[in-house]
């Protein structure tokens, strides 16, 4: 498949742009991929190593 959008980095900025794209109907969840070294989460603060 070909994704519509891929966001490299799932930190604050990456998640903000992902939310923006989805909420403005630019992309559906199935056409969007967020790639990040960490397991998904969302909290601000020191990142935990996997």
């Amino acid at each position, binding site marked *: *498949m*070909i*994704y*519509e*959008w*891929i*966001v*490299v*980095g*799932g*930190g*604050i*900025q*990456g*998640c*903000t*742009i*992902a*939310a*923006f794209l*989805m*909420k*403005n109907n630019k992309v559906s*969840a*199935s056409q*969007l*991929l*967020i*790639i*990040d*070294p*960490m*397991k*998904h989460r*969302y*909290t*601000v*603060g*020191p*990142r935990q190593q*996997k």
Partner: protein
Amino acid sequence: MIEMKFLRSPSVHHLDVEPFSLRKYADDQNRKKSDFYGVYKRPSLELFNEHSQALFRNLNMKSCWHQGFVNGVDREDASWTISTVAGNRFKTKNVVLALSVNGQLNIPEWASNLEAHSHQLFHIYDEAADLTKMKPSIAVVGGGISAAHLVISPSSG
């Protein structure tokens, strides 16, 4: 190295689209007034994190998540191919690089030379650094808001 009970930015800065999303979330959750600080209504870290997690859940961002380390972005025909260290390849029409602050600390060359010869040089995002164990004199290179935030703690403690 630096901690904060309340974020440094006003409540309109968060992950959601609508500026007052965080304020509305706090109202809906019957959060106390003490979850916001000062004139600019800076949110508590705890509230900010809960709001972020709620957004994450509502949009089911978990389903969009791939755990991996990107090591290549290549243009192929009319699309981009994103490669990861684990060998995954994903094709996409559009790419956003949202790398920002991450595990790869930007240490200038002059500093990395110093670092090799002592254990007295730290990056502000170095998780191994313990400010409470540092002894004066201490020099902070950089004069932005994080530098100011950093020096408050040893000077007041």
